[in-house]
């Protein structure tokens, strides 16, 4: 059979390779255009009544976590880790803020009480802040350095080693 005819079946090979490549990608993971850029400002009224805004937190590294009471099981898994991290590093200058998205107040407060969050948490009316940060699911966590730049965006539940490493590097940074 001449080599020209061989082209007919071989024409399908590039397609198969492309589809095989598809196994390495995750269709649900959307890369964020905000990484390595300045974090969008926000001003929210916390559940405990106080106000929390990004401008006030300038100069301190920030862990910004988006959660919801209906986000089961991921948010429930990472909640104790968040509180523990906060307790461990707050004296070293770390700031942590939780944003509750698309939730009912009663359920949110129940969630807060259950995990005993002592860092500021606020609801996001109109989902303005969520959209500003390009949030498309929960939980999502943003690691922001002292200059207010988003260093990393983590999608899904956090792990202890990962958070430890990120926070340490934020604290070390300028």
């Amino acid at each position: 059979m001449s080599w020209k005819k061989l082209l007919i079946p071989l024409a399908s090979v590039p397609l198969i390779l492309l589809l095989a490549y598809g196994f390495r990608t995750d269709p649900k993971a959307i890369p964020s255009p905000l990484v390595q850029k300045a974090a969008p400002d926000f001003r929210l009224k916390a559940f405990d009544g106080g106000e929390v805004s990004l401008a006030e937190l300038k100069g301190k590294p920030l862990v910004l976590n988006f959660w919801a009471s209906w986000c089961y099981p991921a948010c429930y898994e990472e909640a104790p880790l968040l509180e523990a991290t906060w307790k461990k590093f707050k004296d070293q200058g770390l700031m942590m803020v939780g944003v509750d998205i698309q939730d009912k107040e009663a359920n949110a407060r129940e969630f807060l009480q259950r995990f005993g969050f002592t860092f500021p948490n606020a609801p996001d009316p109109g989902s303005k802040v969520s959209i500003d940060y390009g949030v498309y699911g929960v939980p999502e966590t943003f690691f922001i350095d002292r200059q207010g730049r988003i260093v990393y965006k983590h999608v899904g539940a956090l792990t202890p080693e990962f958070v430890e490493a990120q926070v340490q590097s934020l604290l070390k940074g300028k």
Partner: protein
Amino acid sequence: MIPTLGHFVLFLALGMSLYAAGAAVYGARLGREDWLASSRNAVLANLCLVTLAMFLLEYALITSDFSLRYVANNSTRGSLTRYKIAGLWGSLEGSILLWVWLQSLFSALVVARYSDRHQAVMPYVQAVLQAICAFFLLVMTFAANPFATVFPVPPDGRGLNPLLEVTDMLIHPLLLYLGYVGFSVPFAFAMAALITGRLSGEWLKNTRRWTVVAWLFLTGGIFYGGWWSYRTLGWGGYWAWDPVENASFMPWLTGTAFIHSVMIQERKGMLKVWNLVLITLTFALVIFGTFLTRSGILGSVHAFAEGPVGMLFLGFLALVLLFSLGLVAYRADRLQGHGELDSVVSRESAFLLNNVVLIGICFTVFLGTIFPLLTEAIRGAKISVGMPYFNRVSVPLGMALLLLMGIGPLIAWGRASLNNLRRNFLKPAAAAVSGTALLWALGVRQTEALLAFFCCFFVVSTIALEFWAATRTRAGATGEGFLQALAALLLRSRRRYGGLIVHLGVVIAIIGIAVSSIYKVEHEVTLKPGEQIEIGPYSVRFNDLQAGERPTHILVWANLTVIKGNTVLTELRPGQRFYPNQQTPFASVDARYHWNEDLYTILSTFERDGSSATIKVMINPMMAWIWIGGGVILLGVLVAVLPERRLAMLTARAKAQPA
């Protein structure tokens, strides 16, 4: 007991199908009838085994045996029996079992029906069909075992996704699978023809009915899916160009191209290579579709992927493509047709253009579907290719196809003389122009609408004139009444007139699609009880919000009154269903479906105390025509393929009536 037995039965069936394939090839090559007979028995045995496996799984589902993981994931103790049965194809493992069952059933039917004729090719047909069975069985025995157990045994199952616990779930997947599996039969015949070198095109004649029936089921499945989506999903649409939807549309496109271009091979012996490529593409696209659904590489509402299954399907797809295209290349020399045409403008050319447009649409849909993946591979960026893109590019192609549908049947085979063209085109063109002008006078100004209507009028007039002229001639010649002549005509040239009815159905559906999308009216408002919204000729008044407990969920609904003019037309109750295991509620659509327009309402959000509700109201003009068009297509196919005997009985009865 059932898990081990079931798994073992599948294992046996795998062995049986491999034997049936191997023995058939062996017997054919050595001319040993005993091996061939044994392989045929194996085909039947395979069917029995797979049926047994299916029965075991259904038994476990109906008796709510939650020690099987599949039963626990796809049914609950409280489900209605029919949804327990439908749970069989609710997710991955069971859907493959259903596929295998249909595949081995069709294998057995083909073997039973054809093994006493076509001696030379049948063993290879059988081998190919059994090899396909073997692959699916392989996936089930090694990667997606429906009989896998779970420990500890849960007290109750998780149940089917609530969206699937509807009657539609009993019908839609079956229709699609019948279509998909049906296309494997002409594919097998084509492969057998290539392997044995019997390339005279006999395989086309053998499989014509299979192909058309498979096409019918696929068409039915696609229309039904759209209808289901429209009535139930709550976003007001019927086709989202979702990757898995596209995956069912692509084999339909190549299958339609195949049905048409096969007519050229039948008459003139041309396009042999092309037809083989087309049926290969059709079957490959079917496998591509199951690959997409089960691999999870493209996100989709329909996808239900797990584990190594995706890689197995990709491997199978590669095998199918390389094997069949390789065979085509191997035999390409012997396939060169002695193409002869009397003129460039002829029905053959129209059919070729039909193929170009259909393959063009298929290529477009395919490109759009994999383009995000391609972009990620080459640019590393994630993009979306969605509805606006597909609508934008498929509309002009659809128009071209519509036009061809009108022109094609008018041009004679071989060559078209100018007189012939002029005569056949004049009346339909005149009808189309006057019809469009009338619409323009009535206020229709949108270019797309006018264009669509022009093409549709053109096609409908060609079809109507065709029927009219032929019936009148026959009635004049035989002295029959008009209706009798029409019936006799349908019986005599079933393919031609059945085909024309199918075209009519397509035109009706296209009009429905065009008008419902161009003239759709949509409003979303927040209303307090007692307030109303005006939309088109209707007033929709929000009365109050109510909630109630149902066996499986809590239903919250808005009571709406629809008023037209001064009369109350109907009450609508769009709502939301809250299921205990689900985070977000499911929409419960309510609409007034009418032949000329649908009034469609959705409950978006509401205040818990019932003080306000956000309602989305839509008017979808001529939406019902899409489903009616589907019905006419069904009718046309039935006319084209119903067996001789039944139609002869009908004619005899008609003749027996007092003249």
